[in-house]
């Protein structure tokens, strides 16, 4: 099923490879994002293992100091910029249009461009290893270590240029997410009814849009310092090395929330479904996410307590950093309250979600500790900070990514991940993770600084370091088990059906995997759980007031004998006559991304390549803009709705033949079973008006649109 559905978009004449390369379908781009970033995760994980092996015993000689510097820098850069950020973008790419009942992202070509720029940016960063000059100044690359005097080779240039490229990808992606969520919600899908994952993706996109420019500016000024002889980061020339820290962390701290907020969103989807209760305090979870996003711009200098800030600044940043714990704790209490009295189904996804809550609390608490200025002076740049950071990033974001993978894998592939191997994965991950990182708190308090490539045998750090290395290996085995599980499940996993978890959000209201057009009919949305309403017309949410005001088990069918009854058949909104509005096939954004990467290589290698890259980039940009498909005039002048949306009929450029689509979903030329989804209730004819000007409102509806 997965294979046939995937093959349908490509015309018969086109290879499957080219079908993926030229795709603008948000689901395919999402899958590309997920696979690419997971590959980078494996690379970053290997780098982590190398570091742990080096530190396993005192005076080890596995890695020299230079190699160690490059490995820890690339580990941090990879995990943050090439894995965690884009993997969450990948989930968002796949899920946001489905969750809001849209057909695609607002700008499918820009979406494609974001992906390819990410890929080329990653390859560019890793090409530094081929040049023997990988970045080696840590993932935050403090000036003045990074200026030419101390870093004369190209190491830092790879880092600067690579991150500029990744910044372009992130900013383009966040513009796309914001526009999609603002403008493409299905009728009735007000902000107050959006799934929490969409909410958190929205806040994250705002943060990305407003934080990435700081990094781009910081890196550009560093580049000028290195190659034009300006003195922005040089105290001798009238500049200030601290300017780097201010600029970097005014990106870097919102970045922390860019990495965790979508993870909060994933948990807010997984926990209610596997507790069989609506999320407790929907609005509090949403608004606390907004509060975190807002506060995240006011806390950057807590990374800089040790540099000697004015007292007033230290007090302010300590207080604002502790304030963030409040909205974060609100979310944690909401998840716990959601599970309270719920009928918890302990799937692998739910295991990871619960593990997320526990481990993230530890990371959050050590975060409050380092917000206390005197304690921070003690712990800064020690392994305590490494422990804190990994409890937030791995114990938090990574476990949420695993939870999300187990939860949405059936939607993406049509098959479930094996629960047995999933449980092995859970156990190995929790055990290995805590064995690796819990002792690091102690090691930091004992005085071991981060980023040292070895230590002496008489320092008393041997046993703890060895135990941590054992933990890291266990963690690595856990990832291997996960990989085996993925490949086994892709071949012979249990068929998922549309809605394997009896869930409530719209991505489950279409086939698994969804057809290229996602939905044929607009799913009706009257509450935050539209699919619940559709499955339980006798007890819809919108008759009960806001979700979360209900406590206890909402329906009795699943409590008898602990054996869940089969979920009621949910409606599917992906069947019916497909319209010709299908994902486009194009190579222009890919060409533009490649030429931008060529420009950067040219900066380092030869000016001729740079000029050639620029020429091709202009050519690609013109090709992109001028090959825009014809837009049909909107039905009413000045009416935004429908303007430019109707795509042209399939042409040579839209590689879809209706007969082939029909094979996968049973429509088109294939025998049409029914023009109406079998599970849906017959609709009065007056509801079939196409392009109804206003979304139909359910009785008792409230909340602003």
């Amino acid at each position, binding site marked *: 099923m997965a294979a046939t559905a995937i093959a349908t978009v490509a015309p018969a004449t086109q290879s499957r490879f080219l079908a993926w390369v030229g795709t603008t379908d948000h689901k395919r781009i999402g899958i590309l994002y997920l696979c690419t970033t997971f590959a980078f995760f494996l690379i970053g994980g290997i780098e982590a293992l190398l570091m742990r092996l080096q530190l396993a015993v005192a005076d080890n000689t596995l890695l020299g100091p230079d190699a160690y510097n490059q490995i820890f820098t690339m580990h941090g850069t990879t995990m943050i910029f090439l894995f965690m950020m884009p993997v969450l973008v990948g989930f968002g790419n796949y899920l946001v249009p489905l969750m809001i009942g849209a*057909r695609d992202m*607002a700008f499918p070509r820009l979406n494609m461009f974001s992906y390819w720029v990410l890929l080329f940016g990653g390859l560019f960063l890793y090409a530094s290893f081929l040049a023997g000059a990988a970045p080696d100044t840590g993932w935050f690359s403090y000036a003045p270590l990074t200026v030419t005097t101390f870093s004369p080779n190209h190491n830092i240039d790879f880092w600067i240029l690579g991150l500029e490229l990744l910044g372009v990808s992130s*900013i383009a992606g*966040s*513009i796309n997410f*914001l*526009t999609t969520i*603002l*403008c493409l*919600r*299905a*009728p009735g899908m007000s902000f107050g009814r959006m799934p929490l994952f969409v909410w958190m993706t929205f806040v994250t996109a705002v943060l990305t*849009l407003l934080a*990435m*420019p700081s990094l*781009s*500016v910081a890196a550009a000024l560093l580049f*000028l310092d290195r190659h*034009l*002889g*300006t*003195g*922005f980061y040089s105290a001798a*020339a*009238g*500049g*200030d090395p*601290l*300017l780097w820290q201010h*600029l970097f962390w*005014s990106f870097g701290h919102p970045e922390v929330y860019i990495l965790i907020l979508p993870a909060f969103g994933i948990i807010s989807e997984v926990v209610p479904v596997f507790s069989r209760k609506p999320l407790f305090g929907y609005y509090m979870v949403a608004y606390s996410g907004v509060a975190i996003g807002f506060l995240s711009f006011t806390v950057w200098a807590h990374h800089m307590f040790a540099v000697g800030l004015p007292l007033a600044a230290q007090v302010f940043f300590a207080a604002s950093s502790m304030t963030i714990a409040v909205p974060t704790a609100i979310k944690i209490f909401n998840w716990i309250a959601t599970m309270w009295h719920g009928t918890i189904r302990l799937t692998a996804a739910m295991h990871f979600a619960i593990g997320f809550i526990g481990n993230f609390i530890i990371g959050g608490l050590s975060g409050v500790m380092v917000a206390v200025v005197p304690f921070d002076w003690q712990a800064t740049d020690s392994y305590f900070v490494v422990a804190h950071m990994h409890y937030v990033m791995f114990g938090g974001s990574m476990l949420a990514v695993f939870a999300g993978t187990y939860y949405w894998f059936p939607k993406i592939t049509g098959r479930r991940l094996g629960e047995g191997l999933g449980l092995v994965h859970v156990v190995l991950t929790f055990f290995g993770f805590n064995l690796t990182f819990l002792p690091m708190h102690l090691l930091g308090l004992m005085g071991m600084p981060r980023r040292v490539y070895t230590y002496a045998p008489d320092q008393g750090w041997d046993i703890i370091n060895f135990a941590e290395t054992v933990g890291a290996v266990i963690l690595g085995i856990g990832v291997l088990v996960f990989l085996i599980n993925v490949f086994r499940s892709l071949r012979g996993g249990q068929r998922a059906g549309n809605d394997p978890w009896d869930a409530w959000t719209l991505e489950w209201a279409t086939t698994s995997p969804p057809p290229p057009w996602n939905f*044929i*009919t*607009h799913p009706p949305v009257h509450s935050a759980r539209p699919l619940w*309403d*559709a499955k339980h*017309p006798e007890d819809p949410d919108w008759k009960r007031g806001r979700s979360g005001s209900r406590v206890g088990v909402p329906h009795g069918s699943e409590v008898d004998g602990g054996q869940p009854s089969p979920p009621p058949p949910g409606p599917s*909104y992906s069947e019916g*006559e497909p*319209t010709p*509005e299908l994902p486009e096939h194009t190579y222009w954004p890919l060409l533009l991304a490649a030429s931008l990467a060529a420009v950067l290589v040219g900066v380092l290698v030869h000016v001729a390549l740079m000029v050639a890259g620029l020429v091709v980039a202009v050519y690609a940009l013109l090709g992109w803009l001028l090959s825009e498909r014809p837009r049909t005039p*909107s039905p009413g*002048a000045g009416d*935004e*709705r*429908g303007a*430019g*949306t*109707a795509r042209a009929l399939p042409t040579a450029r839209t590689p879809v033949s209706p007969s082939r689509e029909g094979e996968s979903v049973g429509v088109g030329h294939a025998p049409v079973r029914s023009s109406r989804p079998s599970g*849906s209730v017959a*609709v*009065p004819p007056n509801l*079939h*008006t*196409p*392009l*109804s000007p206003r979304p*139909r409102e*359910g*009785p008792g509806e409230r909340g602003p649109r």
Partner: protein
Amino acid sequence: MSASGAAVPATQHRVAPFGKSLDWWGFALFVLSEAWIFLNLVAAYIYLRWLSPASQPMALPHRELLLPSINTAILLGSGVVAHWANTGLDRDDRRRLCGGFIATIVLGLLFLAGQGWEYTHASFTPQSSIYGACFFTLTGLHGLHVAVGAVFLLVLLLRAWGGAFSSEHAFPVQAGTLYWHFVDAVWVVLFTLLYLI
């Protein structure tokens, strides 16, 4: 009323928050990200000039005011002309649109020429002082935006010449004008911070 079933949409459903189209939102957010780049650069300049504990008070070279003031007037004037051209399209007055855009582009190029003259006659370089570094970085990036904006308007002009736009299909023209206004607004901030204060 039944809770399930809905109309078959002929196209993607769109909402227009605050009456603005999808294209407008995308473009406005792009301009916002550009504005944030300038905001960060300006913040860096303010930090280096007034807040940095490490450096001496920023040494300011002699700043000539006459040419930059004329340049400012030219650029602000071009913004007014661009606005006038844009409103011409609302009445489907394509001649006014084309004429206005020609004038805007010419004024923009005049601005760039004045900037070039200033660069070649400045008493400082990017390397000679931190003010020079800030000056050339900020005005250089702004000048690049003026140049890109002029090319943007030129492409729009050529397409309008071919009869491409109308009051019904005005978005690209609005986007070009918005971009031009953005470049103008940035200049007002830079002029104040780099020349006046």
